């Protein structure tokens, strides 16, 4: 038997195409006669559309078509509610989903108003300038709390207020324990917006073949099958006549999910209307308005503890900014609500949130999807509690961690997947111990920090814990086929955006069929190759689709053994699959290649035995009972230069538990990439909106993605507690790196500044903001600054 490929750092199958410029991305699709589309977008955050004059633009020779909402006829309708709210008692939810083109009103800057079809993108953009839109500006809705006041302008006239949802979840009775607490700590926390900012912007190409009645759409989506199904419904076509292809995608990070973005719905419509291939590629400036964003929340939180630092309960009331529409339901705030509990024993919990419509771009999950906020609030409360109770930061965490025998652990509230929040497995203290030891936490605090301070250097250490619900249902499927060449083909319905699915799925299948992963050809994201599935989100690709691949491969393996036993006249129990050969264990010279066996399994004469299927092929579906609970600890050493308010990260460590690791190289890559995103969200990236709802930094010049000189080398280590919920024992990892970084920055910076440091209750920070906090804390008035 070959050494298993699962668990080893197999080089990626997809890399060669990507490295040589041969991988197909959506903007690489060129079709004969293709036309190009550009969108006219609102400059105003909130305004009534009084009139739209398309005549000048239409009169240009190089313009093929110009459309506003009224030209769409019946096709104009609000988008679907993508994720209905979970069944939580007393839940209040008001649906308002985005429309293809604004008709009467615009509700955020960048909302599309009209579109131009031309022979080139250049000409289409020329014509945009000729469209006259008469708008009556309305006051913008920006501040979350003010948005819910009586006086606030209303975004959606059909609703009574800007309230999109109101949810309360409770466990135990917080109000009963708060009086008994030795210490209650209350703070207000702010988290502001960031962009997902994949390097590839969105794009859609659509091709309508009137003769065959087939529509083909290339789309930068994380979820091609739901898009196919939705487009078929919208365009009144059989699902079988619509093919959606998500080819190579240049990063997703959440917003490329099945959004039914206006452009996603309109480009296929235009292709059918004009009978010509149509292309729209989002440019970077558009992406800052037209692609969904995340992270605006305000929390009023409190924690009740004993003198010994044991958590009695937590109360959190928060506001969540959903932007102008709420197509993604409550996923993000429920993630915040559920993730706040972290790896801790929290016997009493009161959590209430309000989701608020604002005149800003739409909010849907972005890498972490609300979990950041929960972790930030809980970890900050524990840091403050540690300080006030004079308990070491690590120690207060240790005293509250769930123990390895506490699993499954039921938190008695409902998670985003509508299932109860039950942790499946974990070993939190082991991860914390590992981080403490590797960072030499005690030695740093007792020896190093003082010595550095004496040299005038402000260096601090941070160490935080988190959990992450991953790998949720409902299901994914996969089909595994052995071809006559011996190549194994795997098809699944998920899309892939750089997570290495071409390789990790290949490893899973290779181990079952006794081939090397490079002999396994994986196809993802093409609805003509696999018909069922949901998509890549919530750190679920490898967990759910990977498990489906595993199940299908197991079924094919059984077929291989059955056929081989017959062909080789051996006992099925003696058959082994090695190096692409199927042979009898006791007499290896008696063998047949996998490819030849595939030929035999598909006979051209004779008869296939009734009750069996031709070929070495199987399809399997996997639907986990509930999600898996990944967890981890992040630690860092940071140096602060208070004179300039600039930071330097000296060391960064992640100890992570994603259960069974399929490919360590890929898993570590996911974690490190997530950390970089988290560093961005903590100190570089912030979407600044003014009171009129204008985004003030809609370019890569002012929206600062961290570069190679900003992200340190990240050390990664693992704790492995396999999940009982899937055959591979794996848990998701795509978002983990990004989640606790804000909390880590806050703690480490405070530690670096030492006595008199400002309390950091907000993310993201920046040098400018840190300077303000230091100024407010009186740092620049202190004698040490005056000398």
């Amino acid at each position, binding site marked *: 038997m070959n050494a298993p490929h699962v668990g080893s750092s197999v080089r990626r199958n997809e890399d060669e195409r990507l490295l040589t410029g041969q991988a197909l991305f959506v903007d690489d699709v060129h079709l004969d006669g293709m036309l190009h589309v550009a969108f006219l977008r609102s400059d105003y955050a909130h305004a009534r559309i009084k009139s739209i004059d398309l005549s000048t633009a239409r009169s240009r020779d190089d313009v093929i078509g110009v459309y506003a909402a009224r030209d769409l006829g019946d096709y104009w309708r609000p988008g679907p509610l993508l994720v209905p709210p979970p069944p939580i008692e007393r839940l209040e939810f008001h649906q308002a989903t985005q429309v293809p083109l604004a008709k009467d009103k615009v509700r955020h800057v960048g909302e599309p108003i009209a579109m131009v079809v031309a022979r080139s993108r250049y000409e289409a953009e020329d014509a945009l300038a000729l469209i006259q839109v008469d708008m009556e500006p309305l006051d913008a809705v920006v501040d979350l709390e003010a948005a819910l006041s009586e006086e606030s302008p209303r975004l959606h006239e059909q609703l009574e207020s800007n309230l999109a949802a109101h949810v309360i979840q409770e466990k135990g009775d917080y109000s009963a324990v708060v009086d008994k607490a030795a210490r209650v700590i209350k703070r207000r926390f702010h988290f502001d917006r960031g962009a997902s900012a994949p390097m590839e912007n969105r794009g859609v190409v659509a091709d309508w073949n009137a003769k065959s009645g087939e529509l083909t759409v290339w789309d930068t989506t994380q979820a091609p099958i739901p898009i196919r199904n939705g487009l078929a419904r919208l365009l009144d076509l059989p699902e079988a006549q619509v093919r959606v292809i998500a080819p190579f995608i240049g990063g997703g990070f959440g917003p490329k999910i099945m959004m039914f973005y206006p452009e996603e719905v309109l480009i296929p419509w235009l292709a059918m209307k004009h009978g010509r291939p149509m292309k729209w590629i989002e440019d970077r400036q558009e992406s800052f308005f037209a692609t969904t964003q995340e992270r605006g929340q305000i929390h009023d939180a409190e924690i009740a503890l004993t003198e010994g630092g044991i958590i009695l309960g937590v109360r959190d009331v928060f506001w969540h900014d959903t932007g102008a529409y709420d197509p993604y339901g409550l996923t993000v705030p429920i993630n915040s609500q559920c993730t706040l509990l972290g790896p801790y024993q929290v016997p009493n919990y009161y959590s209430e949130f309000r989701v608020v419509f604002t005149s800003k771009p739409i909010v849907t999950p972005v890498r972490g999807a609300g979990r950041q906020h929960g972790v930030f609030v809980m970890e900050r409360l524990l840091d403050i509690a540690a300080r006030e109770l004079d308990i070491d930061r690590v120690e207060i965490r240790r005293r509250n961690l769930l123990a390895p025998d506490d699993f499954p652990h039921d938190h008695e509230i409902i998670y985003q997947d509508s299932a109860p929040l039950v942790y499946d497995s974990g070993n939190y203290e082991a991860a914390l111990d590992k981080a403490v030891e590797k960072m030499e936490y005690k030695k740093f605090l007792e020896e190093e920090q003082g010595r550095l301070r004496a040299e005038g250097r402000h260096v601090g250490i941070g160490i935080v814990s988190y959990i992450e619900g991953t790998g949720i249902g409902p299901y994914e499927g996969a089909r595994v086929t052995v071809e006559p060449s011996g190549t194994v083909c795997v098809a699944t319905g998920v899309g892939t955006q750089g997570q290495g699915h071409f390789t990790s799925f290949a490893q899973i299948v290779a181990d079952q069929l006794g081939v090397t992963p490079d002999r396994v050809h994986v196809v993802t994201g093409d609805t003509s190759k696999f018909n069922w599935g949901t998509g890549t989100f919530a750190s679920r690709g490898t967990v759910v689709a990977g498990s489906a691949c595993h199940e299908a491969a197991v079924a094919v393996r059984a077929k291989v053994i059955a056929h081989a036993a017959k062909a080789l006249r051996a006992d099925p129990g003696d058959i082994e699959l090695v190096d692409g050969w199927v042979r009898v264990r006791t007499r290896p010279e008696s063998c047949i290649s996998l490819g030849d066996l595939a030929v035999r399994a598909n006979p051209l004469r004779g008869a296939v035995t009734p009750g069996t299927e031709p070929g070495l092929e199987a399809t399997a579906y996997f639907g986990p009972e509930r999600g898996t609970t990944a967890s981890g600890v992040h630690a860092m050493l940071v140096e602060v230069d208070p004179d300039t308010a600039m930071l330097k990260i000296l060391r960064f460590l992640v100890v992570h538990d994603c259960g069974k690791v399929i490919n360590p190289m890929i898993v570590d890559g996911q974690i490190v990439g997530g950390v970089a995103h988290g560093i961005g969200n903590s100190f570089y990236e912030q979407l600044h909106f003014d009171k009129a709802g204008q985004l003030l930094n809609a*370019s890569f010049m002012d929206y600062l993605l961290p570069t190679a000189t900003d992200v340190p080398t990240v050390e990664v280590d693992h704790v492995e507690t396999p999940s009982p919920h899937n055959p591979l024992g794996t848990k998701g990892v795509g978002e983990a790196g990004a989640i606790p970084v804000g909390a880590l920055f806050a703690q480490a910076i405070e530690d670096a500044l030492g006595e008199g440091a400002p309390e950091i209750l907000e993310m993201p920070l920046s040098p400018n903001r840190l300077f303000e906090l230091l100024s407010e804390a009186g740092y620049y008035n202190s004698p040490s600054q005056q000398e």
Partner: protein
Amino acid sequence: MKPAPFAYHRPGTVEEALQLLADHAGEAKPLAGGQSLIPTMNFRLSQPKVLIDLGKLDDLRGIEAGRSGLHIGAMTTHTDVEKSPVVADLAPLLAETMPFIAHSQIRNRGTIGGSLAHADPAAELPAVMLVLRAQFGLLSNRGHRRVAATDFYTGLFTTALEPHELLATIEIPRPQKRTGYAFAEIARRHGDYALVGVAGAVTLDRKGRCDAVRLALLSVGDGPVTAAGASRLMAGKEPTEGLIREAAEVVATRDIDPPSDIHASVAYRRQLARVLVARVIGQAVRRAGGGAA
């Protein structure tokens, strides 16, 4: 993000370029390296009717050491300036500053003349030219003239250049004796526009006192900003740590009137100026051979 249509000319000689510029005065933009102009055009915030590409004007490219100092053609790329041993020898401050300008891919296309004529208040080179007391050679189809860097910058993105004129050469006098130079800036990320930057030169007399202190800052005003108050304060005095701190305070509180934006408030810019000016003067004094600082 595609540029609007424009007419394009690529003259083969300087004379041709000047004639085109005169013919299209007001509606033509000279295209040097294009690393500021083209992104502006891609955003359609700039829509010149005519572009005059200076890319083939080899006469405007090159670095020469003359008797009076360094001559640099306006179309010389940042990379060529950065890598030039002659520049390192005759204008160490310029050589030291070059790596701070954006990134290598930009420096490979961007030109020294383009940057100086663009007059962005966050650009490093105008401030450096003030400290180096550079002279700019301007050409038009009516003749040529020389303008001192100090007279060249007249306001926000505004220079002494007339619409029909081209910046052709930059002349930098040879370094003075007992003079030390230094440059420092703080940017959000490597290669970004600086939040504040400082270029400085300190000339000491034989007794180690300040003969002349020249400081110019970027990103704190409409263009490069000269710190005259600090220079006056230090003139004739021994550059002690205390005096340097005092000079930095004068710059931060009196010599500059910085703007605020989403990356840095007025107060933060003053603080950065305070820190950087002290660092730059200190280093310049050390390089000039001074001991005290």
